[in-house]
Every structure is written in C-alpha cells, then in structure tokens.
C-alpha cells in the first residue's frame, strides 16, 4: 500500500516535470504557429510516447530510490569507515562510471550525436559504426565522471581549495578547445551538462556528504558539493581529448 502511495507521488512529480514543456508547446502550436501537424506525426503516437515518458521516468526514479540509493549509501558509509583510501577511490570511480553509463539523458544525447557526426561525414554512416561511436562516447563520459568523483574524494581528504581546481579545469578546457576538431567542441561542452541528471547527482552527493561528515574539519555544505562541480567539467575535458586522440583511432578501428 505504501509503495502505491509513493509511486503516485512520484508520478505527480514526473507530470510536473513534463507539464511546462507540454503547456508551452501547446500554447505555441495553438496561438502562434496555427498550422496542422505534419502527416508523419500522429497525435495518438505522440500521446502514447508522452505516456511512456511519464510512466518510464516514474518507475525509473522510484526503482532507484528502492534499490540503488539505499545500497549505494550504505556502501559509501561502509567504505568510509573501512578506512582504506585505495578501496574508497576504486569504489568512487566505479560509482561514477556505473551510474553515468545508465544515465537516460546521456543515452539519448549520445545516440543523437552519433547520427549527426555520421551525417557530417566524420565517421561511417552505417548503423554499426554509429552504434560504436555512441557507445565509445558514453564510455568516455562515464570514465570522466569516474575520475571526477575520484578527484573530488581526494580533494575532500586533502582539503584542496575547490575554486582553484575548477579554474584549472576551465583553463584546461580552454587549451584543449584550441586543438580539438571543431566538430567535437559542441558535443564536448554539452556532455558536461548531460551527466548531472537523474542517477549521478543523488548517488555522488550522498558519497560526498557522507565523506565530508565523517572527516574532521570538513563541512558537508562546503565540501560535499565539489563532486558535482567536477562531474560537469571533467566530461568536457575527456570528450575534447577523445576528439583529438580517440576519434582518429576509432574511425580507423571501425572501418
């Protein structure tokens, strides 16, 4: 019974996420554009799709709250109290990597990026090559979030100043942009925002806050958050590097 109530509450949250998008689009369709929908787009299909989005998101987030989050938080506490930095860093990397691989927004955008890159002629247009590119992009982003979490955990331990590290990250982004192929720059910048959506933020925040709370002299408010800031800069650096080094290798290997 309890689970039904919480599912309904989550359903309301998902609907509230979707409602402004639908309302703004409906407003523009009815009052500004005032044209019939193109024949390729069936209104029933659209509604069914929207239903899938809402139902899917509700199940997804509720499932995370039931399964992944409690176990993940327990594990984070267990690793912190175990006291071995090596294991903790390994766990931090795995957590960042694993949660980003399953991030829905990243799956969606990586697929889109693959087809755009193929249309642009950077990689072969066949399905298998596109699929390979999307997977490679997601792995690169996931590895970058893993490294970002490791760096964030190290920072909390050592007490390194956050703003200096962020500024260094920005400078690195700036330098790499000069060398990266122009086609990859937009994709790289966008991948920084895609990673911090549904799974990564709560899991990683739980790890950071748990760590900061268990180390003397660190405040959860000031030190716990740095993980997210890293998780949005590091993917840019990694994807730019991927554009410089990985893309030539990848197109060689796939064709």
């Amino acid at each position: 019974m309890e689970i039904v109530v919480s599912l309904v509450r989550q359903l309301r949250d998902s609907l509230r996420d979707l409602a402004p998008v639908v309302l703004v689009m409906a407003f523009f369709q009815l009052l500004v554009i005032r044209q019939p929908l193109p024949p390729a787009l069936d209104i029933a299909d659209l509604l069914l799709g929207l239903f899938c989005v809402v139902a899917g998101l509700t199940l997804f987030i509720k499932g995370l709250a039931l399964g992944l989050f409690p176990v993940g938080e327990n594990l984070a506490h267990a690793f912190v109290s175990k006291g071995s930095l090596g294991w903790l860093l390994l766990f931090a990397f795995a957590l960042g990597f694993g949660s980003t691989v399953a991030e829905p927004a990243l799956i969606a955008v990586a697929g889109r990026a693959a087809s755009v890159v193929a249309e642009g002629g950077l990689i072969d247009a066949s399905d298998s090559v596109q699929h390979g590119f999307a997977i490679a992009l997601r792995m690169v982003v996931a590895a970058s979030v893993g490294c970002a979490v490791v760096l964030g955990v190290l920072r909390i331990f050592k007490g390194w100043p956050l703003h200096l590290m962020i500024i260094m990250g920005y400078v690195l982004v700036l330098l790499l942009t000069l060398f990266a192929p122009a086609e990859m720059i937009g994709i790289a910048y966008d991948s920084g925002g895609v990673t911090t959506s549904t799974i990564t933020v709560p899991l990683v925040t739980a790890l950071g806050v748990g760590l900061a709370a268990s180390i003397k002299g660190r405040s959860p408010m000031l030190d716990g958050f740095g993980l997210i800031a890293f998780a949005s800069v590091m993917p840019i650096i990694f994807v730019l590097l991927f554009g410089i080094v990985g893309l030539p290798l990848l197109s060689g290997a796939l064709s």
Partner: protein
Amino acid sequence: MSLMPTLWRTLVDILPIVAIIFGSQYLIIRKPIKRLAQVISGFCMVWVGLSLFLVGLEQALFPMGELMATQLTDARFLPDILPGDERPWSDYYWVYLFAFAIGASTTLAEPSLIAVSLKAGEISGGTIDPFMLRIAVALGMALGITLGVFRIVMGWPLHWFIFAAYLLVILQTLRSPRAIIPLAFDSGGVTTSTITVPIIAALGLGLASAIPGRSPLMDGFGLIALACLFPIMTVMGYAQIAQWRTKRLSRHKRRTQR
C-alpha cells in the same frame, strides 16, 4: 524503436552499476544486503522504467522538439523577405521567445529545485529568499538557452560564449559570499532534468538543420552547456545583490541609531 529491443539494450546499460553494487557488497564489504527482495524489485523497476522512457523519448520528446524547430523557422511562418536578401536575425523572434519560455517554465516547476531553494533559505538565515532564488535560476536557464539559440541563428563559434561565461563565473566566484558558491554550482546541474535535456538537444539540432547556412554538426550542440552555465552566474549575482542590500540596510540602521 519498439519495446523489446530497447528492453534488451537497457539491460546491458544497467548491468555495470548492478555488478559494481553487488560486487563490492559481497566481495569487498562481505555483508549481505538488507532487504534484498526490495532492492531486486527496485532494479527491475529501473530496468523497465528506463526502457519505457527511451521508447517515449524517440516517439514523443525528440519529434516534438524538432517539430517546433522546423515550424518556427519555416519560410511561410517568418516575415517575408525580398528574394536574394539574407534574413536578419531579428526575424526569428518567436524562436527566442519559445526558447526563453521553455527554459523558464521547466526550471520554475522543477521539484528538486524547489526543495533546494527552501533549504538554502533556511541556511542563509533570511538573506536569501527561496522564491527569488528560484527566479534567479529560472532566469539563468532561460537566458542561457535564448543566447544559445541566438548563437545558432548567427552561426558564431560556441567557444567564445563558453570562454566569456567561464571568465565571468571565475570573477564572480572570487567576489561572492562563500556559502552561496556550492549552491550556485549545484544549480547549474539541477536545472537540466531528464525531460528537459532531450527537448533542448532536439531544438538545437532542429534549428541548426532548418536555418539556411547552419549545420547540425557545427552549430547544433551547445544549448545544454549554456543552460548549465548561466544559472551559476545569476545565482551568484543574486547573492551579491542580496549581500550588498543587507550591508546597506545595516549601515543605514546604524546611522539612524546614532
């Protein structure tokens, strides 16, 4: 895209995190998981939910974003120009308005932002007004997307905008009250929810392929990046204004007491 292949593919997607969680629980920590049945049913819900979401995404969210982009840039919809003339950027005013409306409305309704802003109001002890904070984040998001759309229309390089934004963020970080900085950086990530990201991505790509002279590959990306950066600036800006006003108010009080 139909449900069955998607189900299979998402199973592969969530396997790594499942392997990491169970692996470290049983091999390193060596303790049984509490409430195993609940955890397993949770993972099954994640699996089915993610598959449904991705199917719906392909069927509704992506087409909707692209449809808006093509309709708003359609030659029959835009004001008439003389043949051979280049269209001025100001003709796309409905596009800018749409981008602004999508950015502001999705952010104001975002449930996680409401929770965060209430908490920030408590911590700050009254100097930060939760509602004003939400306005600041929404304004940042809306400005970011609108500027990103304007960039696509003009075809200017994305990295100019990013560098300028980085510079401003760095300068503001050095000047802002220290307690707001975490919140400001977080607000950039909070605004881009799982529903908003695909819509914005589709809008950018659709615009870049519909506007003459732009290519999706060179111009289509970047909206998400700007939508994440601008809230950082507006939140720190709001904190600076709030701090300045409190200071002025207390100085004023002291003067009147004397």
